[in-house]
């Protein structure tokens, strides 16, 4: 039937829709009181520090229009940095600066910005332009992540991040998000990044999607996606699983990055993670969530990771596609 499928087929695949996610998981397992911990990236960072979870270094914050004038001083010693609204989401308002050349700030796409362009951007962040509900906000200046060389062929002009859905502390599903020309150096799927489903057991690629449709290669680099394998995978899962204890949120989207020198890091947390991860994995979340729901409380992160790797293992579909 062309473009459409039926509810029966979707639920047979265990696909979870927006309404079910909102009521059954976010509504039930995420206490509203805890949202500020993850909706405010500054709070997340400070909290992560207390729990010894590594995050990209904080260069500074700008919280007043007056502070905008001193932005130049703050940025002077930096060669690459990222400016983001503390309460932003979905990649909105994130400015990634790769390097500084002769007083100009160069974005991953090569576009140049003057200092006053950057100042304007920060001023917009402060007035709440990119933030939830348009409330006044704070701008964070973060060190640029030097991502792992082994992954550079898979991404275009930006840092790929790894989204792990952590349910009651169990990593249930993961995907890597590769930035593209369309997504402008940010790895947010609805902006055009490619999502690659990852096997929870091994951290290897399962299949790829862009704009909710299947992909086998990167649209800009043309590199095939199948050979993608995340180094240090168990550490990364453990880090992600630990975010449950850190925040108390039962249904959590963790965004992890791999730094060349410091290994897996927590980039940010999400109390309302999107559903596209199901597309990237070619599988619904339902079965895995049901299984985790049946597990007792009070299991250590190490045991939870082991449980997930045992139960949620998958055989790569890209391998079969490539082999055929």
């Amino acid at each position, binding site marked *: 039937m062309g473009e459409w499928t039926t509810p029966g087929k979707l639920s047979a695949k265990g696909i979870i829709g927006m309404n079910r996610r909102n009521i059954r998981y976010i509504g039930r397992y995420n206490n509203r009181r805890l949202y500020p911990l993850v909706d405010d990236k500054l709070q997340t960072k400070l909290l992560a520090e207390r729990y010894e979870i590594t995050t990209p270094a904080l260069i500074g914050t700008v919280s007043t229009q007056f502070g905008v004038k001193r932005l130049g001083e703050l940025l002077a010693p930096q060669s690459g940095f990222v400016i983001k609204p503390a309460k932003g989401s979905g990649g909105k308002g994130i400015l990634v600066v790769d390097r500084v050349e002769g007083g100009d700030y160069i974005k991953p796409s090569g576009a140049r910005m003057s200092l006053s362009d950057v*100042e304007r951007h920060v001023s917009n962040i402060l007035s709440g332009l990119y933030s939830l509900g348009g409330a006044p906000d704070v701008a964070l200046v973060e060190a640029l992540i030097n991502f792992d060389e082994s992954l550079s062929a898979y991404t275009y002009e930006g840092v790929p991040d790894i989204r792990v859905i952590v349910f009651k502390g169990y990593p249930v599903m993961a995907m890597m998000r590769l930035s593209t020309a369309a997504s402008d150096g940010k790895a947010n799927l609805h902006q055009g990044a490619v999502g690659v489903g990852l096997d929870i057991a091994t951290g290897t690629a399962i299949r790829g999607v862009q704009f909710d449709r299947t992909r086998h290669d990167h649209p800009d680099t043309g590199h095939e996606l199948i050979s993608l394998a995340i180094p240090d995978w168990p550490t990364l899962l453990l880090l992600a699983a630990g975010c449950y204890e850190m925040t108390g949120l039962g249904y959590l989207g963790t965004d992890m990055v791999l730094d060349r020198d410091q290994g897996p890091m927590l980039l940010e947390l999400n109390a309302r993670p999107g559903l596209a991860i199901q597309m990237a994995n070619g599988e619904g979340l339902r079965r895995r969530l049901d299984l985790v729901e049946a597990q007792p409380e009070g299991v250590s992160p190490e045991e939870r990771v082991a449980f997930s790797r045992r139960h949620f293992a998958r055989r790569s579909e890209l391998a079969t596609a490539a082999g055929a």
Partner: protein
Amino acid sequence: MSRLPFYLLVGVLFLAGVAMTLHRHYQLEVPWTPGEQRQVWEVEAQVNFTALGEPVLVDMALPSSQEGFRLLTEHTASPGFGLSFIEKDEARRAQWSIREASGSQQLYYTAQVLRAPSNPPPRLASPPPQRDIVWERPYDTAAAQLIERAWSRSADPFTFARELLHDFDEERQGENARLLLTQFERTPLLVRLLNQADVRAREVSGLRLEDGRRRQSLSSWVQVFDGEQWALFDPATGAQGRPDNLLIWEGNGQAVLEVEGGTNSRVNFSMIARNQPAAAAVRNQLADDTLLNFSIHSLPLEEQALFQTILLIPIGALVVVLLRILVGIKTSGTFMPVLIALAFIQTSLATGLIGFLLVVSVGLVIRSYLSYLNLLLVARVTAVIITVIGIISVFSVLAYRFGLNAGLTITFFPMIILAWTIERMSILWEEEGPKEVLIQGGGSLFTAVLAFLAMNNPWVRHITFNFLGVQLILMALILMIGNYTGYRLLELRRFKPVTEE
């Protein structure tokens, strides 16, 4: 966490809403559709008498709401007279009084009565007490024989009354009946005979409603009680049952008109029928019905008109809820489409759409310039608001110059909402590109048009305004939808590729 209290709440809201709605339909005769016509009778009673130059007290029976009719409003005209309405033992009466009057006097009483075929009969009045009936000779034997005869041929009070009235039929009158009629008036006589046979009965006076009639008088009827129900009999023909056009004016066996301090008193009636849209007829109802009717319909007309719009908002919101939760359409600003739809109601759809698109697209162009100025958010949105006002003024003047009066209604647009819409669209454009602007803008506009069609529907307007219980039903419905965990329609397309392998 048990969901039981939730479903209980939804159930209570729903049932209360349905009950209130049915109550208004059946008790208060509010029709389901706005177009339904209702017949409203305007009946005028004119009391004439000659005053004797002393204190005057005029006491007249008044009609009440009854089977088949509902009393809407009433007026009197009686210069110089004191007036009070008295309600006693279910009988309503008007009393006019004056210290001194002489010569010919006229008093007027007008009632508006709604023809309401399903108006239930009033609660059973207690039957009148039996009096001991004493006849003089030779009437006692005649009466006894008549009763005897009818009794033997009947089974219950109603058949007895029928048989008795039969014997007073013009053609079939026997000796006994004729003898009694020489001495007594027909209706009181019949009541008397019925009472003597231990059948509860009374005389009532009714007015036959015939359009355009003047100088009519009341006719008397015999009302018989069989222990459970009252039935009406025509004393002249013996026919049982109330004619559809009979309005009972006095139904308690009392005098229709009593005048102290005057002579030659009589009352006559004139009447006309008007067909009114049902909604208007409803509006004229006396607002004192019951607690359930403490509603906004007792407010002055102007405030009611305001509420008519306010009560539509939940309908618009319901459309948004349906489209977002069941279909999965994205809109810019959750309830912005409802406000736009409200503006469409004032402007009409075509003008509204054109106006909206014009204002927003010109606004976007100007806003893109503002974004170069590097302003603080609040200042920038304010600048956009002023821009929107400017655009609207220019369009109004242009429309007026070109003779397009419809263009003037563009001022009904909520300007601050428009400004925010422009602001959001413009950010969306910068951040996610024109495609997303089209998706969200189109989604908003589509939602607004659907909300408009729902809110502008005459039937919906009629129902929401006249049945407040519907608000509770809507509430229950929205609570239920808020609980829906199934797929959204558009997700069936979004997730399609997953189901392919």
